[in-house]
């Protein structure tokens, strides 16, 4: 839709992004499994960008509504996900300080 992206370039982006993801997480202490999953989950709510783009380009109110609902779901995931992860991690932090 924004059109500045050719199909092949996008595939390169996909492959390199996946490789990056594989490399970023190697060893994870079991303590962090739950917070890491929760944090990664919040990041996957980045579909909110697509929802925003949809709202921006939608010609009809009906389509804008679909975009708004999609945005709502994505933000529920993002805001909730980051906050809940922070709540979990805050506990580890406090004890380290003691």
């Amino acid at each position, binding site marked *: 839709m924004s059109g500045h992206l050719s*199909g092949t370039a996008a595939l390169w982006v996909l492959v390199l992004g996946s490789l990056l993801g594989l490399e*970023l997480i190697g060893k994870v202490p079991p303590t962090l*499994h*739950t917070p890491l999953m929760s944090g990664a989950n919040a990041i996957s709510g980045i579909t*909110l960008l697509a929802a925003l783009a949809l709202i921006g380009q939608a*010609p009809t109110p009906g389509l804008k509504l679909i975009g708004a609902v999609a945005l709502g779901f*994505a933000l529920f995931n993002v805001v*909730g996900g980051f906050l809940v992860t922070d709540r*979990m991690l805050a506990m580890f932090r406090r004890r380290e300080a003691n």
Partner: protein
Amino acid sequence: MVELSIELGSVLLLAFGLKGLAKIRTARSANGLAALALGLAVVGLLLQQGLGGWPWMLLGLGIGGGLGAVLALRVAMTSMPETVALFNGCGGMSSLLVAIGAVQLPTPLNLVGQVSVLVSVLVGSITFSGSLVAMGKLQEWLGTPGWTLRPQRHVVNILMAVACLACCVLVLKGMAVALIPLTVLSLLLGVGLTLPVGGADMPVVISLLNSYSGVAAAAAGFVVGSELLIVAGAMVGAAGLILTQVMCTAMNRSLTSVLFGGALGAGTSEASEAGGREEYTNVTSCSPEECALTLEAAERVIFVPGYGLAVAQAQHSLKELARLLEQHGIEVRYAIHPVAGRMPGHMNVLLAEADVPYDQLVEMDDINPDFPRTDVVIVLGANDVVNPRAKSDPSSPLYGMPVLEVDQARSVFVVKRSLGSGYAGIRNDLFELPQTSMVFGDAKQVLQSLLQELRSLGVGKVPAGAGSTR
């Protein structure tokens, strides 16, 4: 140019954020970094496309963001796994809706765009319905119905998958209507794949679905032509896969057996239910008083907390008991099995909430050699992770799972509500060992009466300083 640098900046921040989340020291700031990256990405996008349709954006922001914040701040730490599942499902739903919206835009999609819409719908739906089923199972709203475990389920799932593919072909041939059956079928497929998985394996499934939601996000990125979305989605998808693998290793389960093997021990559950009660013959039970007397004379004590402790909300009582014993000069530690609780790392979070000092939590491999020189082990609401059968009985479904070797300790007290089987539904030989005594009751009540008994024995009235010398 500004937009581009903002986009690049947020990709970098995301990558550093994800990396930092895997280390204890940096995890919290990394989480903030990732949140900042998402915020930046939104700013970049809005600079690019303008604020057209802002009332709709505010609507989504207010309702979705607001509800998410309220839930995140209110939810109890014990229900963390199901909360993550719910959030994840909503991410999948968002990708699904974006794809459905994108096909209705006046600008026609090219082939890559069309395929991406299909992937987005398929994966988004599976993520959504699968995550909701996972949440229902963790909340114990849903069980594992017997009929879902019949081998025929594979046939049904495969048929549904084939039908999904057929719908995809139809859409590519120009029949956009086929998106409707595709959505319905892939939602059902998500249910069909998740429903037979046993509760104990649910964390792995959630982690895998989390990876899927990354894939769905990347597909949505193709649909709207956003490199940032593709990179971020691919990163989360790949990282989620690695995390799933790490979790499988910790639980000694292979991904295929989690996904296609059905509930752990489910095949034998009928037999054990029938003969379950008379199977335990040599169980000794004791009162909190007797337990307190043994504790008072001990030098080294290890607590083994499990999900039952969390359910009884007894973390704080446990912390109190531990402090009392320490004041009495007793060495206290907590043995943490990698999958204690209902999700790897869940128990650490719960004990952290009760302010248990970090250095007293010891991972399984580090504490196992110490059990033989431990006077008292108290198992609180844990079952399968202390089952010696995992080492001795090759026919047991638990066989090969690393367990805490509490049977090596001099005396073991198991605090449990009844002799019911564990989460995996498997008999526990530990309960019948001569050094084991069962203390029946709710974990919190038992801990409270232990505290009372110990105080009446004079424990904790030792002059201050006695506990801090070690």
